[in-house]
């Protein structure tokens, strides 16, 4: 059932609030008449002990029934968490997918545990061949004999021939207390052993430092009030809260028992409860007239700036609103750092209330969702839910601040003077060599010192500098929305931010820079990918181009800070980009390298003759076994790309892009 259906039903329920129940009403009036006639002495009905007793028993029965209903009837609005940012998965969130990427034969059937063992064997072979320099055959032999690791249990776990060594009693006891099966603990230890290959000093990881097998338990966060856009006040639901259900039952119980036992005290207790039951029905929910005004301290902040948001809600009606609960629709891409976007209050006519909070601006265009307004009558027995929408947008364009170090482009042939220092001799500033003077060499290039010394004419040559034509390609596919913590900056955000900085550096040194993306694409009416709206900015330079680049990075839908809903095919997009690239264009490719497609994209671009540099923001974590395996997978992909001649700059989560590039420069990826 869709949400609108539910709302429709709620609204119907709301209309029934006005209905009355006939039978109890008639009974009530009849009893009242009888009682009054006795009081005024019109009839002399003898109210006997038996009669009172019977009435009492019926009342008790009705009471129990009424109280029992309470359990199913209480219904209140559930609220979302607009204070939070949208969360993204951590690499390795799905264990079976993670393990399957290492399996060589995924076609034949294998049981769950068999799949895991096969996957781990594949992972072990992959790391041994890459980081220990073994051939595939040798790696397989080492796994069979268990030579590859010093841990006997791990060796036996992956080898079909080796016997599992007996565990010492102490560890067996500990395992029994932990209730962790030996299979799980073996998987954990094996993964840790595989992850340790290629690193020095990590070989003997203590068992406590081995990541947990179980998934991390994550809070279920709904970061938006609603995805629908509303302007003005829109009623979305009317609910019967059932708040007082059962109190009438308590009243009947006391009156009934009091009648049976002839105790006026008990009857009086019932009267008090009856008072509350009556209170529940005196009012219906007022129809609120509210206005909302949202002011921001800065509508175009720099990413990372704090923006103060003030929301003023005013009761425009002439009636008191005794019960208002307000939750502002903080954009999904922003998180609250201070203050609160919620309030519970009562508003007199013409009165206003302020909500003040601070959000930290992040790159991108963020639109506020409608605020949720819950209002109730004085008795809280019924509730109305409204969305109150006012269009407010924050746009944070990335700063195009150049990097502190040089961007490590690859040496390549190009035509204009620019950042690339080539190996060819020619015009430039950096000394290259001296050659014999030839006619027509410019005078200022003649080595006059040498001429003074020996009388010979010689010409100085410099390294020729050329402008590179660079296209920055950002991998913004759904599978790239990954972060080491669910609400940490994800790989796409980091890529876009760094892309702006790198573009600025390149533009400053005279290179021409373009921008492209692989990301979510809308479909046209006939289900075809609508490639017209993909991000493409042809390499160019100049102030205007710089501005275009900046606004594309800030607000192109393919770079949204909120993860897309569905996956999109990347092949057609890549084909289009390859058609658009001229042959000598270099590509700087931003990708977290967390799936095989990212490697294929880089290699295809390389195969076309483009010099590709991969800058890879690292979103992996190591808190669970599955995450550790995902990290191993990324390491293997990085290694494979580098072996194929595509330099990869690994950008760790805690580093800035300057540090990552500086490290790559000193490491000589060039």
């Amino acid at each position, binding site marked *: 059932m869709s949400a609108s259906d539910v709302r429709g039903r709620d609204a119907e329920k709301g209309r029934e609030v006005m209905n009355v129940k006939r039978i109890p009403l008639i009974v009530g009036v009849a009893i009242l008449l009888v009682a009054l006639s006795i009081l005024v002495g019109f009839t002399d009905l003898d109210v006997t002990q038996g009669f009172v007793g019977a009435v009492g028993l019926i009342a008790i029965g009705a009471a129990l029934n009424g109280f029992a209903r309470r359990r199913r009837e209480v219904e209140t609005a559930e609220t979302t968490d607009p204070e939070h940012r949208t969360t993204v998965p951590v690499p390795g969130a799905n264990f079976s997918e993670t393990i399957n990427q290492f399996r060589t034969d995924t076609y034949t059937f294998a049981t769950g545990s068999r799949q895991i063992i096969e996957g781990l064997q594949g992972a072990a072979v992959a790391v041994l061949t890459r980081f220990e320099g073994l051939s595939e055959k040798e790696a397989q032999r080492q796994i069979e004999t268990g030579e590859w690791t010093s841990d006997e249990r791990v060796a036996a776990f992956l080898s079909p021939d080796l016997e599992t060594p007996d565990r010492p009693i102490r560890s067996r006891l500990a395992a029994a207390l932990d209730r962790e099966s030996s299979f799980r603990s073996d998987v954990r230890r094996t993964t840790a052993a595989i992850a340790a290959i290629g690193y020095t000093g990590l070989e003997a990881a203590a068992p406590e430092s081995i990541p947990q097998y179980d998934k991390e338990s994550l809070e279920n966060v709904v970061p938006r009030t609603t995805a629908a856009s509303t302007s003005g006040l829109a009623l979305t639901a009317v609910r019967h809260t059932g708040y007082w259900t059962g109190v009438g039952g308590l009243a009947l119980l006391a009156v009934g028992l009091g009648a049976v036992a002839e105790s006026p005290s008990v009857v009086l207790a019932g009267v*008090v409860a009856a008072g509350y039951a009556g209170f529940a029905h005196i009012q219906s929910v007022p129809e609120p007239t509210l206005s909302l005004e949202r002011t921001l301290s800065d509508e175009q902040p720099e990413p990372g700036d704090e923006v103060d948001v003030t929301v003023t809600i005013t009761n425009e009606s002439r009636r008191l609103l005794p019960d208002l609960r307000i939750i502002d629709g903080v954009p999904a891409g922003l998180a609250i750092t201070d203050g609160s976007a919620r309030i*519970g209050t009562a508003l007199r006519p013409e009165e206003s209330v302020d909500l003040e909070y601070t959000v930290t601006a992040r790159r991108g265009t963020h639109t506020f969702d409608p605020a949720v307004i819950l209002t109730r009558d004085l008795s809280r027995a019924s509730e109305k839910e409204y969305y109150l929408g006012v269009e407010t947008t924050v746009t944070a364009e990335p700063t195009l601040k150049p990097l502190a170090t040089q961007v490590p482009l690859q040496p390549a042939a190009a035509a204009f003077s620019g950042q690339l220092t080539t190996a060819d001799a020619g015009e430039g500033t950096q000394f290259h060599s001296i050659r014999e003077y030839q006619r027509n060499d410019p005078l200022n290039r003649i080595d006059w010192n040498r001429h003074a010394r020996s009388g010979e004419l010689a010409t100085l040559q410099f390294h020729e500098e050329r402008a590179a034509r660079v296209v920055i390609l950002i991998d913004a596919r759904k599978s790239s929305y990954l972060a080491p913590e669910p609400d940490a900056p994800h790989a796409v955000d980091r890529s876009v931010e760094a892309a702006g900085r790198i573009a600025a550096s390149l533009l400053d040194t005279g290179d021409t820079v373009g921008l492209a993306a692989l990301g979510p694409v809308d479909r046209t009416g006939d289900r075809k990918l609508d490639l017209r709206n993909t991000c493409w900015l042809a390499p160019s330079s100049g102030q205007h181009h710089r501005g275009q680049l900046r606004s594309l990075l800030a607000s192109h839908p393919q770079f949204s800070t909120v993860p897309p809903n569905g996956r999109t095919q990347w092949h057609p997009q890549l084909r289009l980009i390859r058609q658009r690239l001229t042959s000598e264009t270099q590509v700087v490719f931003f990708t977290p390298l967390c799936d095989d497609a990212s490697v294929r994209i880089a290699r295809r671009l390389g195969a076309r003759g483009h010099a590709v540099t991969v800058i890879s923001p690292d979103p992996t974590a190591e808190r669970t076994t599955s995450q550790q395996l995902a990290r191993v997978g990324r390491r293997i992909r990085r290694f494979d790309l580098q072996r194929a001649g595509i330099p990869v700059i690994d950008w760790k989560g805690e580093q800035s892009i300057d540090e990552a590039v500086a490290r790559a420069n000193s490491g000589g990826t060039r």
Partner: protein
Amino acid sequence: MMELTRKPTRQNTVASITGAVVALVVIGSGSPAGGLFGLVGLGLLALGLHRGARLAVDFGGGVLFIGVILGGLQGLSPEATVIGAVGTLLAWDLANSAVELGEQLGRETKTDRLEAVHIVTSLAVGLLSATLGYGVFIFSGAGYSLGVAVLLILAVVFLIAGLRSSEPAAA
């Protein structure tokens, strides 16, 4: 980032516990059995408010009310029983309100004014119905039988039930 705790709000929690303690003291002073029930009810209510559990709150309020009824049956004076009943219903109402507000808005949210409105209205309803009931009691004590009083109360209860909305299940 500020984390939202979806636990019962403080002001209503304090008011609710106060109401329950008043009820307990009044019942306990005259009826040991009622006091025992009252103690259990108070415990359940406090547990429900600590955990934010509606079921415990409802049971706590119900048990406390049974304590009041037992007190009345054991011969507690009408005045004491009425005060006990008001305290009990106040405690139950405000505890529910605290749990609901906690779930919808969270404990950190500013809800003072809303909670104050809840406390005042709930207390007003309790005191008003107690005064009315007590007035009827004095009036009926002056010569009219308990039966007539019971009939009057039942009439009121049925009228209320008749004027209330139809139930969703029946719709």
